[in-house]
C-alpha cells in the first residue's frame, strides 16, 4: 500500500508499517504452531502414560516381564533390544562409513567422489519398509544360511553366539540398521573431512608422514567432532526405526543373551501391540515405552546437532 503513494514513507529505524505488523503476526502464528504441536505431543505422551508411571515408577525401566494378562509390564527387554541392535549396527557401520568417507574425501578424484556421495545419499532416501521388504528375502536367508552358522563355528563358546539359528533376531536387525545408517555417516563425515584445512595435511606430509598416517593422525582427529556428530545422528535414527526392524527382529518379549535370538525393540512392539491394547493400563505401558524412546532420541539428537553444528560453524577441532 505504501508503495503506491507518491512519495514513499521513509522507514525510520524502529517503525513498522501495518503490513509489517500483519506479516510478523501471521508468520509468528505459524511458527507458534510448531510449539503448540510439540507441547501437545509431550502432554499427550505424559498424560496417557500416567497410570503406568504411577504403578511401576522407575522400576518400569528395569522390569523384565511383559505380561498383558497380569498387567505386569517392564521395559528392559525392549530397551535392551533397542540399544543392542543400534550399538551392533554402529559397530558395523562406523568402520564402513568412516572408511568410505576417508576414501571419498582424501583419495578419490573430486568428480568420482561427488558421484559416489550422491549415490550413497540416495540410500538415505530409501523408505524403511522397502529395507524391510528386501531384508526378508535377502538378509534373513543370508544370515540364516551363511553368516550366523559361520559366527557360531568361530565364536560359539561365547553366550552371544549360542542357541538356535533362526535368521531373524538381534543380529539380523543390527545388520539391516547398519545398512540404513551407513549413508549418514559417510555423507556427514566426508563433509567434515573436506572442511579440514589443506595446510594441516600438507604440514604432516612435509614432515614425512604417509598418506594414511596423515589421514588417521591429523585429518580425522581434526574432523572428529563432525564424525562423532554423524555417529550420534545415525544412532538417533537407528533407535527410532520401526518397520524394517519389526520385519526381521523376531518379536519376542523375553530378554535373550544370544544375538541369534529373537528380540524386540521399543518401536517394534509399539507397531505390533498398540492396535490391540485394551484397557488403560496396557495402553499406558505402551505409551510409556514410547515416552522412553522419545526422551532418549531427543537427548541423542541434541548431542548430534551440537557436535555437527560445532564443526560446521567454527571448524572442527578449534571448537574446544
Amino acid at each position, binding site marked *: 500500500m505504501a508503495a503506491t503513494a507518491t512519495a514513499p514513507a521513509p522507514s525510520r529505524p524502529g517503525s513498522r508499517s501495518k503490513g509489517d505488523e500483519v506479516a510478523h503476526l501471521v508468520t509468528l502464528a505459524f511458527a507458534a504452531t510448531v510449539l503448540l504441536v510439540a507441547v501437545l505431543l509431550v502432554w499427550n505422551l505424559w498424560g496417557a502414560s500416567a497410570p503406568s508411571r504411577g504403578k511401576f515408577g522407575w522400576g518400569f525401566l528395569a522390569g523384565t516381564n511383559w505380561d498383558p494378562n497380569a498387567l505386569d509390564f517392564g521395559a528392559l527387554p525392549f530397551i535392551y533390544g533397542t540399544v543392542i541392535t543400534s550399538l551392533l549396527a554402529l559397530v558395523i557401520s562406523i568402520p564402513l562409513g568412516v572408511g568410505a568417507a576417508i576414501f571419498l574425501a582424501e583419495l578419490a578424484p573430486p568428480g568420482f567422489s561427488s558421484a559416489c556421495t550422491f549415490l550413497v545419499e540416495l540410500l538415505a532416501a530409501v523408505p524403511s519398509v522397502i529395507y524391510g521388504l528386501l531384508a526378508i528375502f535377502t538378509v534373513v536367508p543370508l544370515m540364516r544360511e551363511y553368516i550366523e552358522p559361520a559366527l557360531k563355528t568361530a565364536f560359539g563358546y561365547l553366550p552371544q553366539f549360542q542357541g538356535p539359528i*533362526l*535368521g531373524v533376531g538381534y543380529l539380523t536387525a543390527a545388520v539391516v540398521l547398519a545398512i540404513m545408517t551407513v549413508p549418514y555417516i559417510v555423507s556427514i563425515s566426508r563433509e567434515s573431512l573436506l572442511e579440514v584445512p589443506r595446510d594441516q595435511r600438507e604440514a604432516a606430509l612435509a614432515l614425512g608422514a604417509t598418506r594414511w598416517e596423515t589421514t588417521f593422525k591429523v585429518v580425522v582427529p581434526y574432523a572428529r567432532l563432525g564424525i562423532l556428530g554423524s555417529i550420534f545422528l545415525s544412532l538417533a535414527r537407528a533407535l527410532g526405526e520401526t518397520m524394517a526392524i519389526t520385519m526381521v527382529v523376531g*518379536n519376542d518379549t523375553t530378554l535373550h543373551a544370544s544375538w541369534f535370538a529373537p528380540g524386540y525393540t521399543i518401536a517394534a512392539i509399539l507397531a505390533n*501391540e498398540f492396535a*490391540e491394547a485394551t484397557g488403560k493400563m496396557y495402553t499406558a505401558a505402551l505409551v510409556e515405552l514410547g515416552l522412553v524412546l522419545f526422551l532418549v532420541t531427543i537427548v541423542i539428537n541434541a548431542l548430534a546437532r551440537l557436535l555437527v553444528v560445532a564443526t560446521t560453524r567454527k571448524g572442527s577441532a578449534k571448537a574446544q
Partner: protein
Amino acid sequence: MKTSIALAGILLAGSSLVSAQAINGAGATFPYPIYGKWFEEFRQKNPSIEINYQSKGSGAGIAQLTAGTVDFGASDMPMKDEQIAALKVKALHFPTVIGGVVPTFNVPGVTDLKFSQKALAGIYLGKITKWNDPLIAKANPGVKLPSTDVIVVHRADGSGTTFVFTDFLSKISPEWKAGPGSNTSIKWPVGVGQQGNEGVAGMVKQTPGAVGYVELIYALQNKMSYGAVENAAGSYVKADLDTVTAAAANAAKSMPADFRVSITNAPGKNAYPIASFTWLLIPTQIPDAQKRAALVNFLKWMLADGQKDCAALGYAPLPKQVVLQEQKQIAMIH
C-alpha cells in the same frame, strides 16, 4: 501443473461422489480368507455397500470395538466377561464359520507328521528342541526325522488363533495351564513372533525347521505341510471339513444363548481337537440407519448364501440349529 491439480481434484471429488455405504471392521486373521471373499461377493451383489475388513488379530478387533473406532469386530476368542463389561455399547457374538488350527511345519524331507498331545505341548514349552526328539519319533515310526533345530513360531499380536491353540494346550497339559495359560496374548516360553496368521505362515514357509500354528486355509493356500493332532479319543486326526464339523457337533446341540463356546479337545473319534467357531462382534445399537440396514443385510446373506463358500476354503459351515438361533439374534440389533 494445472491439469494435474485439476485431475487430482476430480479424482478426490469423484471418489467421494460415488455414494457407497462404507462400513469398517477389524479383527481376526483366522477367517480373513473367507471374510475377504464374502465382503467382495457381497459388494458385487450390493455395489453400494463396501465392508472394509482389516485383519489385525482378534485382540485388535476387540480393542478397536471397545474404543469405538470400528463398526464391528471379529474374534476367534469369545469375549471374556471383563471385556464385555468394558464395552460402552453391548455387542452380540455371531458365529460365522468353524475352522481348524493346524500345526504347520517346514522340515526338510518330511511331508506328514503326527503330533501327540505331549509332543505339541513339549515343542511350545521349549522342551523339545530337535526334530528327531524321541517324543516326536514315537508317534511317527518309519519317518526319517532330521536333527534340525525346532524353530517355534507364534503370534506377536493379540490373536484369537493363539487363544484357540493355547486353550487346547491348557486342556491337555497341566504344565501349560499352570504356566502360560490361554489368552489372545500370552508370555511365550520360546519362539519367534510374527504378525497375523499371514506372518506365521510366511515365516514357517521360509524357515527350514520351523513349526507354527495357523488356520487350515493358510496351510492349504500356500501348499504347506501340516500335521495330524492327537485328539481326546487318542486318534490322530488331520483337519478337514469332516473332522472340524465333528468337533462342533456337541456344541451345535447345546449352543448357549450368547454363542460363547469353546470346542477344543472335543470328544469323538473323528473330532479335530483344535477347532473353533469364529465370531463377528456386532454392536446392539447402531444409530446410523443405513449402516444398520447394511450390516443386517450382510448377516442374513452370510447365514444363507455365504455359508456355501465355506467348503472351498477349508472352513466348516455352521450347523443348522446354530444358523436358526443366529437368525433370531439379528432382531436384537436396533
